[in-house]
């Protein structure tokens, strides 16, 4: 097995697949804001696993039976669930689920006709259907999560180059993507107009992990990058634009001396109407002073990742960066630096910037830098 793959593309560049994400099966996953509406689609990806028992949650949409695909779900058979117990499709057992080798998977999801439309291809070969029940109604999707379907169903293995198409791809198209096991540039195919999302799992030019803030981003390369900085007066050049709480703004920084209670520094109206739910935001900031071990937290939307001051940030003196997944119903159009520390210590903050990902970037949740592995098909 090669540790990396590369292939020449039309422009003469070398198109590489050198990394994958390793999921440990305990609680890590890639959170995205993509594909949140149940509709016909095709999910294509490379996967490798050695788990011979049930290995659930290759991907899902907010529930283990909501647009969810599982390896070895029962009697060694893979399954696609669209709703609880009466809308699912099994396929016959395939050793590709657990032979410890890389395989290319394509899950074709026909929302309205599972018997004739839902298909599974492994390495470009059609897998025979097994039993199904399509008497029920498809459950409404949440956002796509890769590597888990619920907190009790997490995938164990590696995944690379996960792409979503908004159509039922044909076997010929899937074999084109399989490309004889060579890397495939989804943007250069004749059906690229149906490509909606593509996470390269470490090969994206802007894929990055910040160890000091235990946060990582896997860009959706269909629409990668970030928008402009949305913070006004992030350099604290004036005493304005911030709801300061106990902080003071002066000498070009925001400073607070702790009093043992909750203290905050907030900039409001960064977003409106939850328009950025499901987005990854990049937060940049500088700690210019920290006289003790004050832990800075971030607070914002009432959703995963940054609610209730629960996300701790790197708080040592220096420049830091964090990627935060905004996912919640939202009750505050704000982002808040938040501390709670014993009395008499001081922390100062400067150069705050915040930018929102353009596309449906993925947030490496409960994952480490070591989980971006040089292990590819």
């Amino acid at each position, binding site marked *: 097995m090669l540790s990396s793959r590369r292939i020449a593309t039309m422009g003469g560049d070398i198109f590489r697949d050198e990394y994958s994400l*390793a999921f*440990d*099966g*305990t*609680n*890590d996953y890639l959170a995205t804001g993509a594909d949140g509406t149940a509709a016909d689609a095709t999910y294509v990806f490379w996967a490798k696993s050695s788990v011979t028992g049930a290995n659930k949650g290759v991907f899902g949409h907010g529930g283990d039976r909501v647009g969810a695909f599982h390896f070895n779900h029962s009697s060694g058979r893979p399954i696609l669930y669209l709703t609880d117990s009466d809308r699912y499709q099994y396929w016959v057992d395939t050793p590709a689920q657990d032979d410890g080798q890389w395989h290319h998977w394509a899950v074709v999801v026909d929302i309205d006709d599972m018997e004739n439309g839902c298909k599974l291809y492994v390495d470009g070969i059609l897998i025979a259907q097994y039993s199904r029940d399509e008497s029920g109604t498809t459950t409404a999707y949440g956002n796509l999560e890769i590597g888990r379907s619920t*907190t*009790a169903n997490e995938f*164990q293995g590696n995944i690379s180059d996960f792409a979503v198409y908004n159509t039922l791809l044909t076997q010929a198209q899937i074999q084109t993507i399989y490309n004889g096991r060579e890397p495939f540039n989804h943007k250069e195919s004749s059906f690229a107009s149906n490509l909606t999302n593509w996470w390269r799992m470490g090969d994206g030019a802007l894929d990055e992990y910040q160890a000091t803030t*235990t*946060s990582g981003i896997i860009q959706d390369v269909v629409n990668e990058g970030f928008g402009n900085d949305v913070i006004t007066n992030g350099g604290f050049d004036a005493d304005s634009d911030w709801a300061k709480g106990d902080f003071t703004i002066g000498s070009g920084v925001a400073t607070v001396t702790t009093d043992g209670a909750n203290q905050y520094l907030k900039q409001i109206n960064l977003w409106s109407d939850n328009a950025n739910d499901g987005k990854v935001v990049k937060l940049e900031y500088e700690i210019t002073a920290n006289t003790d*071990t004050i*832990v800075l*937290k971030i607070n914002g939307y009432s*959703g*995963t*990742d*940054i*609610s*209730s001051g*629960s*996300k*701790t940030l790197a708080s040592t003196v220096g420049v830091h960066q964090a990627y935060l997944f905004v996912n919640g119903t939202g009750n505050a159009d704000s982002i808040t630096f938040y501390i709670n520390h014993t009395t008499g210590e001081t922390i100062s903050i400067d150069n705050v910037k915040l930018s929102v990902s353009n596309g449906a970037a993925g*947030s*490496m*949740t*409960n*994952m*480490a830098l*070591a989980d971006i592995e040089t292990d590819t098909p």
Partner: protein
Amino acid sequence: MFSNRKWIIIDVSNITDEMISNAIQTSMDTLKKSLDDSKAILKWDGDTPSCFEGMTTYSHSEILEILSGDDW
């Protein structure tokens, strides 16, 4: 795989900011908790941070065995 990673199981009420800062977990909100929400797992790579010293640690295979039980 994950031979350098260790896990602990801890009462949710005993989790501190320092633990979250030293663990791989992204935030308090993304912890994996037991079905009764009383316990959670934390994990790290490499040397054991001081805040976890003295606690029972589990290897990858050990924690997977535990998580397959009825409590999780």
